[in-house]
């Protein structure tokens, strides 16, 4: 049995175990069990990544020993290995925060977080269109249940989120059905060899794309995201923004870069890149204008996903492997930074007793650590060197800067940077207003603040392993 499967089964089994015996454990111990499972899954993911990086070609896993064509194949590539590692790492970081900060989480958080981990791991490993649909549904249902953990006030946003998530999945499934009707196969590897440029393929790809863009909250289908992400409990917001929206993005990347014929991909790609640019600006402006801290952070997710969409669009237009590296570096850097931002925002809300941005006056004095975490994570979103965000942006900008004809795209990236600097500095500037301090309601929870800072430090540490990450993602090409 391969390490990748171990990394997938550990969270799935521990989720079932926690559902069965969770009631007999104390809340703290249930958390420790979930974190330990996340850690073991992390170790397995590391070995899986080493295995596939050494072999330098994808490892295909036929589940149940069925032969190719009958089996639902799983596929381990260096990218899916890295994403497995990243998912497990995020679950451990967020789990530590959820278990040891004073805010805490309800007991039901733990099995759900394990399910979420398992669903994502299955998604990264799938190479079968219908299997991807199943993992999408699993992901969506778990995410909705986690939003509802925030209690009564979150039921309405959770119900809306669920309906949208179902609609998105149905769009995707209709596309999958049309694809199967045309080619008689669901396996991504097989479809990549067979796909042709005809109207049926075009319609199928278009319908799938609409569904996936809705699910990944890519502009202009992002309107559901702020409501759902801002109303969830803090730890859940961190997972939703950091990980869940990246799942559909992965599928989108897979169908366009592998399944779709290059001709169609090159036609649609500029639209994707433009949507990304619009997301950068529109999401950033909404973040700048929002009155609530968590809504600001949620809108910043919409904006940051714009970079990823842009990288995807340019990857398809130019078929440039460097954009592939930029896309996934963005995903990882944004995941870590956003987890830190949400946790810091949650901690500040709880300590200062306010949900408004204007209530952060004097936060540098009253909650210095949480504010520091917010600023440090924000620095990565802006792309200040030497953070992970900078690394990703540099890889994205390099080909844009080398050719003068690419100036509109470079301008888009730079204006996105400007807007994200504006909304981060808006918060930081208010927090330095020590003349009119908003007095805290209770003593800051030091451990919670440190745990909120942890992912932010990790994203700045990404620069240390930047070379390794780039080589891993590019397969040694660059």
């Amino acid at each position, binding site marked *: 049995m391969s390490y990748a499967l171990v990394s997938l089964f550990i969270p799935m089994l521990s989720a079932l175990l926690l559902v069965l015996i969770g009631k007999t454990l104390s809340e703290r111990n249930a958390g420790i069990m979930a974190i330990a499972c996340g850690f073991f899954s992390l170790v397995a993911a590391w070995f899986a990544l080493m295995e596939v990086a050494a072999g330098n070609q994808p490892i295909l896993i036929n589940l149940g020993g069925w032969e190719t064509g009958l089996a639902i194949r799983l596929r381990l590539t260096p990218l899916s290995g890295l994403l497995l590692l990243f998912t497990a790492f995020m679950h451990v970081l967020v789990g530590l925060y959820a278990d040891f900060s004073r805010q805490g989480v309800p007991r039901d958080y733990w099995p759900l977080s394990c399910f979420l981990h398992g669903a994502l791991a299955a998604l990264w490993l799938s190479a079968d269109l*219908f299997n991807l649909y*199943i993992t999408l*549904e699993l992901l969506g*249902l778990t995410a*909705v*249940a986690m939003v*509802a953990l925030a209690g*009564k*006030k979150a*039921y*309405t946003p*959770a*119900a*809306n989120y*669920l*309906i949208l998530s*179902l*609609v998105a*999945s*149905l769009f995707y*499934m*209709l596309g999958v*059905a*049309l694809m*199967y*009707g045309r080619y*008689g196969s*669901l396996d991504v590897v097989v479809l990549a060899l067979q796909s042709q440029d005809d109207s049926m393929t075009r319609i199928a790809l278009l319908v799938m794309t609409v569904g996936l863009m809705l699910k990944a909250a890519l502009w202009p289908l992002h309107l559901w995201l702020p409501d759902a992400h801002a109303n969830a409990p803090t730890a859940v917001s961190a997972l939703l923004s950091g990980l869940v929206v990246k799942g559909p993005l992965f599928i989108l990347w897979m169908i366009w870069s592998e399944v779709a014929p290059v001709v169609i991909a090159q036609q649609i790609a500029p639209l994707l890149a433009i949507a990304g640019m619009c997301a950068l600006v529109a999401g950033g402006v909404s973040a700048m204008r929002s009155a609530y801290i968590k809504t600001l952070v949620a809108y910043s997710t919409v904006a940051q996903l714009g970079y990823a969409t842009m990288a995807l669009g340019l990857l398809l237009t130019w078929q440039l492997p460097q954009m592939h590296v930029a896309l996934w570096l963005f995903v990882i850097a944004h995941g870590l930074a956003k987890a830190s931002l949400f946790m810091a925002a949650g901690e500040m809300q709880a300590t200062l007793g306010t949900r408004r941005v204007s209530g952060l006056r004097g936060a540098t004095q009253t909650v210095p650590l949480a504010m520091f975490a917010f600023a440090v994570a924000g620095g990565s979103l802006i792309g200040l060197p030497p953070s992970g965000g900078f690394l990703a942006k540099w890889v994205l900008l390099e080909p844009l800067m080398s050719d003068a004809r690419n100036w509109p795209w470079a301008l888009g990236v730079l204006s996105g940077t400007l807007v994200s600097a504006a909304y981060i500095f808006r918060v930081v500037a208010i927090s330095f207003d020590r003349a009119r301090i908003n007095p805290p309601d209770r003593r800051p929870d030091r451990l919670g603040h440190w745990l909120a800072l942890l992912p932010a430090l990790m994203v700045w540490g990404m620069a240390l392993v930047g070379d390794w990450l780039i080589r891993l993602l590019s397969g040694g090409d660059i």
Partner: protein
Amino acid sequence: MSSLQLYSILGIAIFLLGIHGLIMTTDAIRRLIAVNLMGAGTFLVMVALAGRITPPDPVLHALVVTGLVVAISATAFALRLIIASSIIEKARDAEDDTL
């Protein structure tokens, strides 16, 4: 018109009807029914496509069955959430009236 075309077009029409309902209505239960209509349309397309060869393609039948299971459980979950949220909203309205 062959039966494959007829049922595919019917399925897509039902799917579009579902989207129409989803956009035009605000009541949560109605929207959920619209989503279920979209599901029914998708399944109809899939069953129609299964008939493109003889004997009918069993893979698509299996996919429809899997999709039905997902749709039923998701609908149940959505109903529970909608009922819970409507109870809370009613309670809030009642509170507002007494104030």
